[in-house]
């Protein structure tokens, strides 16, 4: 007999969350992580001597409160939630940045009074509507056939909260639901900096421009997240993302989870329609009644399970999941903290966004459609060493940026394209922080091709599959594998490729554990 009730493949944060929930329910669980350390896209690494940075995800803005509470993450070292929320800043080369103070711009600094008033209204509307979607994005997606009573009830609750909106608001909710963010922003706002920031946030991590249909969904996705019980809140974790995933790992270990690193799974053994074991690259076979894959769904099915255990139509759907990333990650080791034009020095702890207008973001996206990178990329920058000086040598600074658009399938190839894209990024940075180029000690750029290789994310896509309407809810990752189930008995999915999607949320992992345990959602 096996030593374990459940094997979790992948020690990313969702795998750890899933394992911890299962262990807390009394299951004997082992997590198998291919890399030398756990955390997946949420770990911290030294990219230059004495410079450390969050290797991929660098902001916490959607870690689910139930995950924090149930796994007692604060007891296990997650930074206290009372830390003041960093602002978001729409940078401006001209030197007049716009500051969104508090949780996603409770107040604006640097905007005209009329725009402030308009934003108050638009922001309230956005949060009202995001609030309707929030429960849908927290529980198991509704299934089309044979919905359990509790699921139906959950869906009905969404209907009810829709009704509570009032007739006019409900009509408007349905009207704007699938709009594009550029048109939506134009309806209520006029400041291009503010609209540019909304446009950027809506398309971050997607193969979309602000004018792509349904792009507003991306903004809702963002706003359904919360931090420290504040909707739209965010945190730049001290110690980098490893502090967060480390706390989850500690919680998992405290619950009795066995964690094995450098344990790459090469196949999932299946017999007569049932997953029976995970087989390591070295040949070791770890049998368990439940196998949970918290890695990419395509890798899971096509590489680990293999088409011979699956139906052709299902394999087609898995092969057709769109997952070509457009986001690159930039790490700069700077010999001193940069100065951004017009940005007060005490604002350097904020999330800094370079996306001057929706048009600018759209123009940055255009070449990506044809396999070319943006000549003037848009980006989200944090300087994590401002709050946590331990991340850089004394007086020096770490810059971490998510940069778009860097299409995975770059026509010229990333071998040739990478230095050219780096040049484009640095010239944008130079325009906003003159002199920054001279302070660079070391630079590292992770293109989607690098991200694919280093983090085992096919297509270099953080969400493990485009997060667009056709790949959401019960269509995520694809019909036949929705709701954490798979065509194989005993095999479940628990990663970002499953509903609701990526970001450091822990929700796919938590929901998968609940599915395995048969615990009904509230």
């Amino acid at each position: 007999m096996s030593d374990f009730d459940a094997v979790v493949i992948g020690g990313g944060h969702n795998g750890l969350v899933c394992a911890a929930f299962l262990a807390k329910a009394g299951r004997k669980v082992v997590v198998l992580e291919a890399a030398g350390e756990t955390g997946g896209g949420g770990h911290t690494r030294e990219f230059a001597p004495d410079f450390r940075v969050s290797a991929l995800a660098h902001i916490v803005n959607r870690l689910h409160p139930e995950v924090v509470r149930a796994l007692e993450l604060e007891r296990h070292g997650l930074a206290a939630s009372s830390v003041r929320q960093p602002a978001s800043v729409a940078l401006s080369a001209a030197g007049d940045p716009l500051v969104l103070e508090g949780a996603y711009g409770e107040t604006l600094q640097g905007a005209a009074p009329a725009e402030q008033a308009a934003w108050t209204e638009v922001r309230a509307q956005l949060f009202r509507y995001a609030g309707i979607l929030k429960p849908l994005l927290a529980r198991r997606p509704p299934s089309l056939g044979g919905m359990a009573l509790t699921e139906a009830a959950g869906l009905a609750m969404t209907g009810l909260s829709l009704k509570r909106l009032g007739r006019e608001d409900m009509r408007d909710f349905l009207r704007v639901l699938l709009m594009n963010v550029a048109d939506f922003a134009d309806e209520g706002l006029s400041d291009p900096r503010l609209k540019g920031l909304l446009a950027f946030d809506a398309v971050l991590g997607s193969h979309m421009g602000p004018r792509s249909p349904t792009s507003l969904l991306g903004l809702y996705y963002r706003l359904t997240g919360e931090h420290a019980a504040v909707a739209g809140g965010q945190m730049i974790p001290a110690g980098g993302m490893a502090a967060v995933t480390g706390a989850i790992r500690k919680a998992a270990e405290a619950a009795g989870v066995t964690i094995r690193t450098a344990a790459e799974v090469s196949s999932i053994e299946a017999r007569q329609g049932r997953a029976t074991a995970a087989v390591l690259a070295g040949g070791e076979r770890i049998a368990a009644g439940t196998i949970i894959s918290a890695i990419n769904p395509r890798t899971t099915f096509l590489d680990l399970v293999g088409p011979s255990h699956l139906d052709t139509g299902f394999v087609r759907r898995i092969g057709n999941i769109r997952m070509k990333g457009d986001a690159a990650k930039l790490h700069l080791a700077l010999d001193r903290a940069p100065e951004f034009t017009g940005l007060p020095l005490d604002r350097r702890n904020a999330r800094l966004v370079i996306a001057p207008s929706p048009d600018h973001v759209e123009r940055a996206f255009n070449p990506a459609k044809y396999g070319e990178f943006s000549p003037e990329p848009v980006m989200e920058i944090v300087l994590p060493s401002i709050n946590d000086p331990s991340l850089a040598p004394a007086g020096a600074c770490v810059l971490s940026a998510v940069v778009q658009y860097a299409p995975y399938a770059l026509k010229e190839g990333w071998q040739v394209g990478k230095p050219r894209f780096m040049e484009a990024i640095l010239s944008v940075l130079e325009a906003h922080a003159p002199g920054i180029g001279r302070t660079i000690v070391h630079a590292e750029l992770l293109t989607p091709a690098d991200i694919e290789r280093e983090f085992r994310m096919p297509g270099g896509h953080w969400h493990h599959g485009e997060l667009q309407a056709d790949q959401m809810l019960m269509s995520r990752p694809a019909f036949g594998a929705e709701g954490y189930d798979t065509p194989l008995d005993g095999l479940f999915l628990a990663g970002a490729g499953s509903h609701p999607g990526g970001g450091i949320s822990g929700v796919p992992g938590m929901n998968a554990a609940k599915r395995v345990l048969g615990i009904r959602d509230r």
Partner: protein
Amino acid sequence: MSTLLDPAARLALQQHFRKPKLDSPFQPRLEELSLLQDWYDWAGYKAPMSLWDEELEYFAIRSQAAVFDISPMVKYRIEGSGAEAFLDRVMLRDVAKLRPGRVHYTAWCDDDGHVLDDGTLFRLSPTRFRLCCQERHLPWLLDSALGFDVTVEEETEAVAGLALQGPTSWSVLDAAGFDGAEALKPFDIATFPHEGGEVTVSRTGFTGDLGYELFVPVEQALSLWDRLFAAGALFGIRAIGYAALNRARIEAGLIVANADFVTAEHAIRADRVRMPDEIGLSFMVDMKKGHFNGRNAIVKARVAGGAPQVLVGLEIEGNVPAEHALVYHGKNREVGLVSGAIWSPLAKRNIAIASLRRAYGELGRDDLWVEIYAMRELQYQKMMKRAKVVARPFIKLERRMATPPGRF
């Protein structure tokens, strides 16, 4: 191409519409013999419904040697070290049990367990197969090949095929110099020299009679035809059309895709698709082998109490064929439909293949009634005829199985 073609050049490149039906490689011989000029469309080919006399063509199958052109049948060449594993995943039957040099009748399903088609699978060597079927499936087969070391190519237009069926069929082969053909047992395959190449002969057919199917490259089609007809003159060899074959196959209880059931990719209405259990193919479904397409769905349907339909043989009183008649229970409850029916000259019975609701389909079930509308000089004569469920095939011929076959 930098400029658009002028209309004349464009037309010259697209002549397909002038001849919307493909010719069979045997077309010159068929045209010569076609007194009736009664053609139909078989998978894009011009194929004979009847050549000279439907009735006598049928009797050629049962009393002589009938030649039916099966070139239009869709054929795939499936080859590679992973061919067996590939086919095992696609097909209902266990392909590992199909030895080289053997053929079996099989079927395959989509994810929902609905039958995509049925056909014959020829294992020509340990790593090479030929799949013959009614519909085209290349995209499905290619997508199914992901992860297997196998190549799949359509060879419909490259390979000519003839069915040689009837009591004197082996005698024709023997007279034509196919030495050793007598050793072929049903579903065996062998190759014989022909014109410097070879002809692949299998003891298979669609008539329930003694018979063979012969395959050659299209270039050798006519010489094969001539070789058989020269040798078969004294054995009553005759070319036949589909109408005669259809009678024989109903007697043999064999079903035809998109005649007796609607294939999954052709069905427009959601309730028209069929699982293997609904069309009499349960025997193919091998739950002991590894995974195959549709397995989960079939298991699920069986656990849930079985699929709603069942395909049966019916024996109907009288002698009026009940083609496409409604079937009733107790004369008033509609329970199914006849998909193929004839008066069987061999069984001397009025027989039919029908799909019924499962509850009414068990063997021996009676109080079934068939509503036949016979057009008699511009008036329908409506008949309610008693029917009962009987075993298929409706006829069993010893000569079909006898090895060596009897000589004439």
